């Protein structure tokens, strides 16, 4: 079985660190990191991760736009995307799903359950703690 890879796109280095730490600690996945939408798209095209965890509110290119570009590119259009969002308004969430989101994880998230939540959305086997 090949190791699954996860691309985490978030402009906040603290969040990046917490998330990476939590995932590394509790999952066997390879964690890729990007600090902006553009960087994330470039890595995604190159590395073809098994899933992308994407922050919604980012400078320059927000999560929604990043998702649209990922969906528009043939190399990345079928990569599952799970959003990390501080927005709880249902209309915002609805827009993300309409744009092609595969799941939604609210901030603040628990780094210890982040991997399980991602696996749950993607239908991957449950993780062993």
């Amino acid at each position: 079985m090949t190791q699954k890879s996860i691309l985490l796109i978030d402009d906040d280095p603290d969040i990046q660190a917490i998330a990476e730490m939590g995932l590394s600690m509790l999952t066997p996945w390879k964690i890729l990191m990007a600090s902006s939408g553009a960087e994330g798209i470039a890595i995604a095209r190159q590395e073809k991760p098994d899933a992308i965890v994407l922050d919604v509110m980012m400078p320059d290119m927000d999560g929604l736009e990043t998702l649209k570009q990922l969906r528009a590119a043939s190399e990345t259009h079928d990569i599952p995307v799970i959003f990390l969002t501080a927005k709880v308004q249902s209309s915002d969430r609805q827009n993300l799903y309409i744009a092609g989101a595969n799941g939604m994880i609210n901030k603040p998230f628990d780094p210890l359950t982040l991997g399980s939540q991602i696996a749950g959305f993607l239908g991957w086997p449950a993780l062993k703690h």
Partner: protein
Amino acid sequence: MLDLLKSFSSTWAFIPHEHCDLWQTNLIWLHIISDGLITLADYSIPVMLVYFNRQRSDNRFKGIIWLFSAFILGCGTTHAFEIWTLWHPAFWISGGLKAITAIISSVTAIALFSLIPKALAMPSRDQLEASNLALTQEVEERKRIEVELQHRLDFDQLVARYSTQFIQLDSQSLSSAIEQALEDLAGFMGVEHCFLFKVTPSEETFSLTHAWATQDFIPPRTLIEIPYAALPWGMTQLLSGQVLNLSSIAQLDLEQSQDQTFWQDLRIKSVIGFPLHIQGIFLGWLGFASYTHEQEWSEQTVQLLKMFSEMLTHTLHREQVEIDRRHAQAQLQNLFSKTPSLNCTAGLDGYFQLLSPSFCNLLGYPMDELLKHPFLDFVHPEDQALTLAEVENLSRGSNTIGFENRYRCQNGDYRWLSWHSTAILEDQTIYATAVDITERKQEQMELTQKNRSLKLLADLTLQIRQSRQIDEVLQQTAKGIQEFLQTDRVLVLQLTPAGCLARAESVLPEQSKIVGQEFLDPCFATEYVDKYQDGTPAMIVDVSTADIHDCHRDLLQTLNVKSNVIAPIFQQDEIWGLLIAHQCDAPRCWQDLEVDLLKQVADQISVGLAQWQLLNQLEGLVEERTAAFLRSESQFRSLFAAAPDLIYILNPMGLIQTVNPAVIDTLGFSEQELLQHPLPELLTPDCQALCKQGFQDLGDQGVHRQEMNLHCKNGSMITVDCSCKLVNTDDDPFILVLQRDISKQKAIEALKDEFVSVVSHELRTPLTSIHGSLKLLGTGNLGDLSSQGTQVLQIALRNTDRLSRLINDVLDLERIESGRVVMSKQHCNVSDLMIQATQDMQSMAMQNQVMLRANQLDCGVFADADHITQTLTNLLSNAIKFSSLGGQVYLTASVQGQDVLFEVRDQGRGIPQDKLMKIFERFQQVDVSDARQKGGTGLGLAICQQIIERHGGKIWAESEEGKGSCFYFTLPKSTD
């Protein structure tokens, strides 16, 4: 030869002739007997010839017969002298006789010579026989022709005789004459049976009407009625007008077999039938039948009988027409005599011909009287021209429907008749029926009079109500009544303390005017007026004989009044005056209608007087009100002008009629640019569609409210909160539109949204880092912590959780309050909501060792399931938190009228009464330490209240300290 001749004449050879006989006796006797017989024969022949000649005087050969008679007599005599001379020699005599005989013979020979050609020219015997035969045949032919001629003559006489008879005879005698004719014809035809069949009304059979048979012959009984079907071939012949000539029934064709059977069953040998056809109508047929032998009828006979049958056809047809005519006439007569209708016939000459008794009864004349005069004499003079015109129309073939005229009765009255007539131009006769419509006409006239009266009353009432010129109205009233009553004077008298004043008058020119005069007579105040106190009008038919007070009579006679009718006019239960009609030429019996009119007009004047008085009082009031209204209107105008909101008045089509200055100031358009323009044209395209729906709502509900974007003249756009109301005034509905500029408010809201969004992100992102870091520390994977470190870590984690909840609640509450959270209401099952909430809270309940109990309610609510679940979980969470270990929390629901009542009950410490209302406010908790100890944010109940109120429900709490609390909320029950 010469010698021979000389010997004969010479005497030498002469010898007595006895010597020639040689004196032989026998020989002599032979001569004697022979000569004797010759003599006898020669004497008898002339006798016969003379007899012949005498008998046949026309004999053309008499002369020669006489000569032959003389010659034969001479010869006989010479032979007699031959005997004589035997004994007596009288030879000279004998010679002389012979000479005479010779001469006669010579003459005879010569005469015969000349007669020979004539005799030869005479026909021979054969010729005579042939001639004789021809003569005989001719004679017979002549006899036959003579017989036929006689036959024809007899038949012609027969036909002529019956023609005359048939024309002259009446119906009954005609029948006998026909039977006699049949007898004569049967004899003429030489048949035993002769019959006349007529077509029955069904036109499927013939019926025997007349017949004759010889005395010794009994005709078959079955020959009474013959169905057409019994004689298919014969019927075809007869119906096509051909003679049915069957001289030999035995030798008919195959196609005539059915006819043959019919005739043979009757034992008829020969039959001949003649159709009776006239003007395309088949009346029947005349038949002759021979039962004993077959008969051949000559063409001549057939022609003669055809003539007779034609004559008979005409006779029968005429008879039938006559019968029909008599029948129709009898029916008409019957109808005329028995019908109650007014029927008549009249000639176009203008005289009645026939009249039903009811007609005579109606007019009262004897019938003779009506018949002997032109009917126009009885018509009302005013209707005569129209009646004459109607008769003209009838004579041109038109029909009369509902023509009305008046006929004079014997007593001088007139009756109105409505006519329905038609004219038969061939007969020059008008057939008419009439209906007596006199009563209807009278009713119509009464109705017309009543209508006129009502119209007059209506007109006068209108004048009285509409005009405030009392004298003018009274004058008009008097004039109207005087014209209607056709009376000499109508007067309005007003009572005064001293008598009365003639306020208004309408009077004929020949009568004296009294308007304006005051009659100073105290009796007006007492006897004269008192009788009108009950409002009843009074009349005097004849002043001269009326039982009235002297002063009253004097007054009336002064005014030359012969008759009057009076109705009182009241003002506030007091008699104000009198409305009076005067007849000055003769006494008059006033009709009820006239009296009623007078009273009603007087009543209307009374009402008018009250109205005029009231109007005067009202006038002051109106002036006050008008001033108030003007003030109010001025205030409104000021408000309209000064209002910061945009105000429009639209017509029902949506066109702008009026705008306030705020519209002009805000949008930048001039008033001229806006007036008569549709309001929707000011809207942005996306709002125009909404506006269309808005107009529809306005029509349905009368009001409409929505946000709209408007274009300003400078190209900018403003957002307005637009309220519309359809104002239905009696005759001029309009739409009032009020727009409040909420552009700034919208901008602030957008800013606030942005703020909340940023705050939400900016607070949560560091919180996520802190919380995540603490969580990672807590795993021990980053190094072991001391027990105190672990305790501090737990405190930090608990507080980050609390901070996280607080942020969520603050944001939730803000969004719900601002209305940006849309409640997606739909039909939800109450039990489903309760199960969802209890399942969500089950783990917490177990953690707190609290028993969670819920009932089931199979009922629907119209709600946003997520938010109601959030409310229920919030209330359950509170109940669990405030329950003691082992406590029970109940979630129940029940239907309460149109609502479903939810109830969350715990057995905790309860809530003090003074806190029951406050706990729904933000950050209000029963105990300030609760937030810290129970982990609450102090916003949960505020959120619940917002959610429930957004659903149109109510939320409240009841509690008894120490025993527990009960939180209730209601939701509208859904109708699905």
